[in-house]
């Protein structure tokens, strides 16, 4: 009998993931341990927490949590998933920079419990500002303008934009459902950006890089802010329309989803 040696290449993230206790599954693109799994899809690396998320509402209770964890909904079966997406440039191309990925994976695991590392400090604000183009936190899209914020403190580095500054108390229930549907859909479609309700009447979009290893921040900060700006520019006008301008729009008199509540 002749044995044939496997010619499949081992991906460069194999060693760092195995070092953290994740084992490859049969399909060679997924890894898993008791807590989380990892998979590469469309060039992005996605970590996913095992088991049912504690929260049932993807739009509540997520803002301000460290790292890029967010709740997304599987639209086919309605199942909630808790994921952490990494852009293609962060995944190692070869084993020589696999160490960097191990630090990233450490960050993912460390933040999976929802707690920040109180010993971690972000880079100096001046350095962060050098990584961003001028006026990166000011967004003007047609008639709508939004000012974002960089929250830079011990244990915290978050980029935040308000999407809706005030949901009126008397907003009709069906328009609230449509607003919720828009926000949840945006949350599901776009990686890295987390959308959530702040208090009773505000909607914010965030990219949270709290705890990230410094060696990847120079790459992650501009990617994160660019993605955040893109998502806010796409969602802010329809959100404003639903909150302020949709009077008389008959299409919105049909519920998007009888089970949704805001």
């Amino acid at each position, binding site marked *: 009998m002749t044995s044939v040696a496997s010619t499949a290449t081992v991906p460069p993230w194999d060693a760092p993931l195995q070092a953290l206790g994740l084992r490859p599954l049969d399909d060679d693109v997924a890894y898993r341990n008791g807590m989380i799994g990892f998979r590469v899809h469309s060039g992005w690396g996605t970590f996913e927490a095992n088991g049912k998320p504690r929260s049932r509402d993807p739009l509540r209770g997520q803002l301000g949590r460290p790292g890029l964890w967010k709740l997304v909904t599987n639209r086919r079966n309605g199942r909630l998933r808790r994921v952490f997406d990494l852009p293609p440039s962060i995944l190692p191309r070869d084993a020589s920079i696999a160490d960097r990925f191990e630090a990233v994976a450490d960050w993912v695991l460390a933040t999976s419990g929802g707690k920040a590392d109180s010993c971690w400090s972000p880079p100096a604000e001046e350095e962060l500002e050098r990584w961003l183009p001028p006026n990166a936190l000011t967004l003007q899209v047609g*008639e*709508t303008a939004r000012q974002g914020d960089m929250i830079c403190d011990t244990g915290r580095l978050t980029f935040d934009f308000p999407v809706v*500054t005030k949901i009126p108390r008397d907003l009709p229930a069906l328009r609230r459902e449509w607003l919720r549907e828009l926000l949840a859909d945006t949350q599901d479609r776009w990686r890295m950006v987390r959308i959530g309700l702040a208090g009773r009447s505000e909607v914010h979009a965030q990219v949270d890089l709290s705890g990230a290893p410094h060696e990847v921040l120079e790459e992650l900060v501009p990617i994160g802010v660019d993605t955040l700006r893109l998502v806010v520019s796409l969602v802010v*006008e329809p959100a*404003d329309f639903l909150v*302020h*301008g*949709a009077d008389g729009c008959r299409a919105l008199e049909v519920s998007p989803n009888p089970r949704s509540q805001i």
Partner: protein
Amino acid sequence: MAEHWTVSLALRLDKNGPVVLREPVTEADLVDPLSECWLHSVLRRGHPDVELEALRPNVVPLFSEGGTTCVGYTLEVVDSNGTRARHDFTMRSLEGAASRGAQRLISRGDMRQGDVYYFEIKADRGPGISVPAASDATPLAGHASTKPIDPLTVPIGPLLEQSRTVGPQDEDVIKVFYTEEALARAESLSRRGAESDPAVETGAVLLGSLASCPSSGDLFLLVLDALEASDADEQQFSLFYSSNTWGRIQAVMKAMQSQPATRTFRIVGQCHGHPFIPGGGAPPCEVCPRLPVCGRSSVFVSTDDIDWSRAVFRRQPWHLSHIFGLNARRENVQGLFGLRDGRLLERGFHVIRDFQVEGT
């Protein structure tokens, strides 16, 4: 059901050469033509109460007889009562879009500033351009509104009888009546800068009222005063209205609009001087002494004048630009420009001795 078209411009560097760029014609390119259509096909037809925002427009290409070459387009509009109107435009009305395409060619190195280029309209059946009738069908964190026309009711016949005409007359444009005093004041304020050394540009805003004839229903314009652009930054080839300039104009307008005699006054245009000899100061041509009129003058609307007017008088298609300049013989000449075919083109006007608002 109306057909819908998508319109773009094909640019060539050679008259018979290949198309080097297709530049889309956007909603913004059609704001001035739509305003003009509103003025001539709606307001001047006895409907001064119909707002521009109430019109639903459609762009229909115009083809040469028996041919496939698009020579222009018609803007068809329908108001909320279902009344239809239309107004034709040549392809020259899209020069702004062509210029934008030319800038793109320059940016990518396919053309240099000053090179000649050619453009034509291309029309394809498609979803069409929606041509927004301004903003605010949906208030987004705020509400936009536009001041109603509210014209004076003035019979036009007696004004035409007593007036003298200046410049080329055209029945297709809104009639303009200047009082003698307003015209003299506009010229004086515009030519003041010529007394400086070196000469600088000075000017004023033109104040007046829109009026509607009770018998014909036609809408026309009365220019009744000129208000100096004081505290402006006056330079040899530019005139910039400062914060103080506008502040004073606004204060005066507010005071005027609170008085019965001037309640309907609005800013209807601007005037300024081009106090320079055309052709860089070159002397008159050889045949000039034999000609009744010198053909070279500094009376023209510049690209800066067009951009300023487009910004200040958006969706006010009756607005005027009055330029006071010199010809090559160093004689004073002037020209009044108004919106026609989507562009500021020279036009004539009427001059009346005086005008008093009824009841004042």
